[in-house]
């Protein structure tokens, strides 16, 4: 049987392992950012990646946004109607989306769709020695491969979250106004009156921007740090999805507490 000391030792090893990885990830983060200025001259690299990271994620974002909006419309109506406040449906739907569901659900989907793909791509480039070959050609793979992908992710996330929220509001409109008979004018005018540009929209954008940094950072780090074997890449891909999902939810709580905690 294992002694208490053995368990302590394992715990300690895991702890130092965690901090070691965090350190490596931070150094990589700094090097990725260091490569950013030179990319302004070659912005086409970022545009290319924005296409594969952002544009190709559009479909899943559009469909999910629509359904989330429709569910919000339905659930919101059922609750509000008890208080005779169904006119406020627009406010409920839009605030839920803009403040929380838009950034959070988009980031979770983004981690699954784009983050995992980034990790797998970079991990496989490492496994097939493409990154090594670049180094030997005197081309820094961090600047050439990682930085454009990171910037593309950071640019795409807020845009995708905005699209998610917009489509969600329309989904809520279909269900609330189209099916359940909420007044058309009330849906929009209440929304216009109650949703604040800075308190709500801007905070939502900040959230989605932060999530974009976190997800893409985790994704490129896991790919770059992956053990260069099939198993290593598959583990890294799983870790990207798990770690970024957890990080998104934890960060969401912290950001929400900072932004909306003082009311």
């Amino acid at each position, binding site marked *: 049987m294992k002694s208490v000391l053995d368990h302590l030792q394992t715990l300690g090893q895991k702890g130092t392992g965690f901090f070691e990885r965090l350190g490596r990830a931070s150094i990589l983060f700094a090097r990725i950012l260091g490569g950013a200025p030179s990319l302004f001259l070659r912005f086409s690299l970022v545009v290319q990646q924005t296409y594969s990271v952002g544009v190709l994620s559009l479909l899943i974002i559009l469909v999910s946004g629509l359904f989330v909006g429709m569910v919000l419309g339905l659930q919101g109506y059922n609750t509000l109607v008890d208080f005779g406040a169904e006119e406020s449906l627009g406010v409920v739907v839009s605030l839920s989306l803009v403040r929380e569901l838009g950034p959070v659900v988009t980031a979770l989907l983004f981690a699954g769709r784009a983050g995992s793909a980034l990790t797998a791509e970079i991990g496989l480039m490492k496994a097939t*020695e*493409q990154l*090594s*070959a670049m180094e*030997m*050609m*005197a081309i820094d793979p961090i600047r050439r491969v990682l930085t454009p992908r990171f910037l593309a992710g950071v640019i795409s996330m807020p845009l995708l979250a905005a699209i998610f929220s917009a489509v969600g509001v329309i989904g809520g409109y279909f269900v609330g106004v189209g099916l359940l008979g909420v007044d058309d004018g009330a849906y929009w005018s209440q929304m216009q009156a109650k949703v604040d540009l800075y308190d709500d929209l801007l905070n939502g954008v900040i959230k989605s921007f932060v999530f974009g940094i976190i997800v893409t950072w985790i994704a490129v780090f896991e790919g770059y740090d992956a053990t260069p074997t099939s198993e290593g890449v598959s583990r890294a891909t799983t870790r990207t999805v798990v770690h970024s999902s957890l990080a998104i939810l934890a960060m969401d709580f912290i950001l929400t507490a900072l932004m909306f905690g003082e009311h």
Partner: protein
Amino acid sequence: MSNSSDILVSARGLSFARGSRQIFNDIDINIKRGSVTAIMGPSGTGKTTLLRLIGGQLQPDSGTVTVDGEAVHALRRGQLYQLRKRMGMLFQNGALLTDMNVFDNVAFPLREHTDLPERLIRNLVLMKLHAVGLRGARGLMPSELSGGMARRVALARAIALDPMMIMYDEPFTGQDPISLGVLVRLIRLLNDALGLTSIIVSHDIAETAAIADDIYLLSGGKVVAHGSAEDLKQSGSEWARQFIQGLPDGPVPFHYPAEDYAQDLLSGGLA
């Protein structure tokens, strides 16, 4: 010893360990300018590691590696990258960038490192591809190439910047006789035509010995033998003879170290 300016690459007292496993133990290697030098040894002797040490991708535990008069591991990052522009490397499976076609792969280092107009790049790329006989394959993607073709494309990419030397990592592994013959010929031809210095890491004895001017045999972290192919065949070292002639048993035992055979069977797995 020959004049040091004749020596393009030299390793002095090089030691390198991976974890607790000592891969090199105080080895000295000299690679002459303009020559084709082969580094041979059994699998797992760290031949590829040696190339990575020369290219500055790994740091030695002790000793120095000098390439064209510059101590590789004392260089700053920028200087190392400048030096690498003059070194080509051919990876075992080519390591072509899979999201680009053959043409763009060869053009890649030119586009990254030069501001040449696209028309000139096109001509340069076609010349390099013609040299390896794949000008007609310029539109193919790496996934559509055979292993031998991928290595030839990678070779064209490695000479794109007109380097002073090329390192080949196991260039002959897993090739059919025709593409093997093509590669062997190309390595020698390019070396002589372009005035390169070539380092081949391999354990394919016949092919490598046919084109190598100089051979180093590595084993157990040491240089076991050194000389031309002829020298090694007549080498006094029993190990070198076993390796060169491919004998199954000798100083390198057939059996992986194990406890006594009879004892092992009799214990019935209960020991």
